[in-house]
């Protein structure tokens, strides 16, 4: 049996709250210390302690970070799920089981079984009080020994998890050593999986999408943050609060140049963000589906009163409370037409951590320039998993604060009005209290009908002109929105995807003999390139992570001339998308096409 090097996945099943997550991270980081691009997916429940949770680590020669649809090594350490975990494993899967669980031998049929008396080994941890926290490290040691992770890599990984805490690190290493020693002495290697050092990581970093997003906001100049806790968005605001004090200098007296407010709910959070945006600060709020639904009315106000702010929607599985700890891309239609009346909201679709940083940073320029709420749509997979990512890119160019009604502007324009389109691009010159000081700028911003001078109006013509200008303004945003990314292909098919689907798309493309062209959409409203792509391909498949094919629907609406050729392939089970699903969808489509 030839060994297979650096090309397999490990799945660890535990209960949440047991601290196993720390051990899992240690394995991932130890592999990274070996130079392997070990990616991880954390499938956790909506609960604090006791419910099933899975962690899956993947290493591949290509360094792919897509979730593998199968695992080659399983640690079924949760009695509540062991039956199912074993059943879902393919024949030949390596299983490291807790011999104390007394699972029937028949259940292991066809599997490569290593039994470990974890509970007994745990007794070797001398301190009984610390035992519950340390015992998970034993399986780390077993894995290390079986698949070739040096204890030094484990120690180094622990160093990055508990930086500076030498005692803690030693206690943990000792626990891992127990497993390591047990394995060396008692387990006879019967499988072919093996890790070996490599140079896959290079200059890259390991970061959660939400953290990269938060840092992007800091570089984007956000100074007023109003948020309300919700999974999977909480860690965005929390990361922001954690970093902003360090990254952004206080004034010489120590006065802070930002404020983070935990609002009483999402209605208040968006109200504060809009209030701050109106008053001239760069502001944001972050939430997920239920919060987005609550923000509808105020977002409509922001659209109509033309107030910049950035709204982060880290999508999770809906509808309603849905599966709060699972991933989906299902808020597109809601967000695009959020709020009653004729509204439209631009949104950005980052696909990876460095784009999360970049788009997040850019959102503030967009919001200011176009004086409108800008939505940033990521998802739980991007937001809450860690990613081996290109470093976050230093923004090039200066902040764009957009058109402001300075005294100079008012003098120049003669006929300035808060909502007058003088440049023909639909974008008026806005006011900022305390900055725009010309007496003419004082007015009452409102969500009711208003004329170009911001005065109350019920005139049908005034209303219509205003709405048309707004529409023109939003359409005009494409010049500044991130353009789609095209990958040429040779198959008679064009595939469209966006956001976290990108990774599975890329891996699928690599593995396909006949490759479709691939367009990754990165923003709404759509660029001309999207139309061109549709025009060029007889058949177009939109792959996305929701039930209704929401992106396909948006494309059909806005590009009706191509609507009849747009097919839709959807996955909406809530787990991170696998390459297999994408590849099958493409193959099926190509099969239909070529048959």
């Amino acid at each position, binding site marked *: 049996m030839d060994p297979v090097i650096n090309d397999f996945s490990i799945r660890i099943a535990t209960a949440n709250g047991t601290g196993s997550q720390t051990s899992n991270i240690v394995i991932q980081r130890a592999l990274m210390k070996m130079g392997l691009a070990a990616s991880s997916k954390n499938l956790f429940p909506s609960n604090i302690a006791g419910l099933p949770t899975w962690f899956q680590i993947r290493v591949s020669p290509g360094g792919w970070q897509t979730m593998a649809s199968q695992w080659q090594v399983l640690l079924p350490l949760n009695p509540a799920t062991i039956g199912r975990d074993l059943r879902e494993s393919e024949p030949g899967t390596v299983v490291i089981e807790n011999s104390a669980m007394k699972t029937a031998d028949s259940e292991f049929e066809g599997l490569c079984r290593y039994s470990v008396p974890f509970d007994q080994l745990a007794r070797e941890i001398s301190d009984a009080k610390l035992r519950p926290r340390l015992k998970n490290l034993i399986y780390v040691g077993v894995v290390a020994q079986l698949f070739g992770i040096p204890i030094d890599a484990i120690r180094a990984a622990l160093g990055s998890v508990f930086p500076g805490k030498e005692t803690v690190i030693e206690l943990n290493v000792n626990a891992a050593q127990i497993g390591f020693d047990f394995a060396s002495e008692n387990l006879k290697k019967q499988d072919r999986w093996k890790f070996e050092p490599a140079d896959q990581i290079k200059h890259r970093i390991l970061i959660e999408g939400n953290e990269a997003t938060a840092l992007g906001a800091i570089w984007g*100049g956000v100074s*007023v943050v109003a948020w309300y806790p919700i999974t999977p968005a909480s860690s965005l605001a929390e990361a922001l609060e954690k970093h902003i004090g360090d990254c952004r200098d206080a004034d010489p007296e120590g006065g802070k140049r930002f404020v983070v407010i935990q609002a009483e709910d999402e209605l208040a959070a968006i109200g504060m963000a809009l209030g701050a945006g109106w008053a001239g600060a760069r502001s944001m709020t972050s939430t997920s589906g239920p919060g987005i639904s609550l923000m509808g009315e105020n977002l409509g106000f922001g659209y109509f009163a033309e107030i910049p702010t950035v709204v982060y929607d880290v999508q999770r599985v809906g509808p309603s409370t849905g599966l709060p700890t699972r991933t989906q891309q299902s808020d597109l239609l809601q967000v695009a037409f959020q709020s009653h009346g004729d509204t439209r909201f631009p949104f950005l679709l980052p696909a990876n951590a460095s784009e999360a940083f970049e788009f997040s940073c850019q959102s503030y320029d967009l919001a200011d320039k176009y004086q409108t709420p800008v939505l940033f749509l990521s998802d739980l997979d991007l937001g809450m998993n860690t990613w081996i990512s290109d470093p976050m890119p230093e923004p090039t160019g200066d902040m764009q604060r957009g058109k402001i009604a300075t005294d100079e502007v008012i003098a120049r324009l003669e006929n300035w009005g808060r909502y007058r389109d003088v440049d023909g691009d639909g974008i008026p010159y806005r006011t900022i209290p305390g900055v725009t000081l010309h007496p003419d700028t004082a007015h009452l911003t409102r969500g009711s009908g208003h004329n170009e001078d911001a005065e109350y109006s019920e005139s049908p013509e005034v209303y219509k002109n205003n709405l048309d200008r707004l529409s023109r303004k939003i359409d005009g945003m494409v010049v500044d929105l991130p353009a789609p990314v095209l990958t040429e292909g040779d198959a008679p098919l064009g595939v469209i995807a966006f956001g976290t689907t990108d990774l599975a798309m890329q891996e699928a493309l690599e593995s396909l003999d006949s490759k479709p062209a691939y367009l990754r959409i990165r923003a709404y409203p759509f660029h001309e390139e999207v139309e061109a792509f549709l025009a060029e391909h007889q058949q177009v498949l939109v792959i996305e992570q929701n039930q209704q094919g929401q992106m396909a629907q948006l494309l059909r609406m806005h590009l009706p001339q191509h609507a009849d050729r747009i097919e839709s392939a959807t996955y909406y089970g809530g787990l991170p998308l696998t390459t297999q699903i994408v590849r099958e969808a493409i193959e099926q489509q190509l099969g239909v096409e070529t048959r």
Partner: protein
Amino acid sequence: MSEDKKPATNTLGLTKSDYKGGPSTMCKGCGHDRISEAIIQASYDLGLDATNILKMSGIGCSSKTPAYFLGNAMGLNSTHGRMPSFATGAHIANTSMTPIGVSGDGDSASIGMGQFVHILRRNPKMVYIIENNGVYGLTKGQFSATADRQSPSKRGAYPREESIDLCGLALELGATFVSRSFSGDKKQLVPLLKAALSFDGLSFIDVISPCVTFNNHEGSTKSYTHQKEMGVTFHDPYYVSPQDPIDIEYEQGELREVTLHDGSKLLLRKLEHDFDPTDRNASFDAIQRTRNKGEVLTGLIHIDVEARSMSSNSGLTDQPLSMLAQQELRPASGVLDRINDSFRI
């Protein structure tokens, strides 16, 4: 021949009319207009620079009034019940600006109750006025949560629920400036507004402000118009009878029975001049005592002079956040490299 009579000016050299706004579209006699006038008067008296004021409101007749005062101030007429969050955001973006928030009892005590409670807890420096008429004026006369339990509405139904005492509520929630007045009591309202504008925290003013057009029925304690004329009841839903506003004047400690146009009575009790509003227990007692007697307590009910506003507490730089430049907002080049490094495993 004779010299032009120059209008009086204040310390800023401004006339009172410099503090006016556009023409009001309230019904003639509406209490809300009297409050706008009081704001104009207080601002003039204080020599206020209106460009440092942010007029904030929600939705309702009351929430329209910011268009009718301080025409030189910027304003934001937000969504129903959400003035507090917009005001908080606007103020924190530029703490050198003081919001004057105007809201209605429907706007703050019904749909806006959550935000009202939480802004009291946060205590930003601002003036928070509720123009309290016990009714939804703009949507034509439904009860609000401050309607008296014994007042029948225009259609004769009684509110089934307990009426909310906004000052009692504010006090219970730890508000640091709690006061009440009557729209037509200029002598009380103007000084209260002046105190409110100078306070470092949220100054809450509950102003009883009768709606001329709705709530007009016998037995109401918050209205002053009538539908009956010459013994003929018209029940014409399309006719809004113009009224004279009610103006009153009474002394500290006095109980004033205000007889409204429809004959109903409102018992206002003005706080004694030696009342100590800094003693929170005394404030609780005073509210409780008058309430038990069916009286409505007016005056500065509570002030915590040691309280510090949200903005004072926030450790913010003096420069408004809204005016920070790129170099103050975006970390210096090099910082991102350090951050990226910290994410290297």
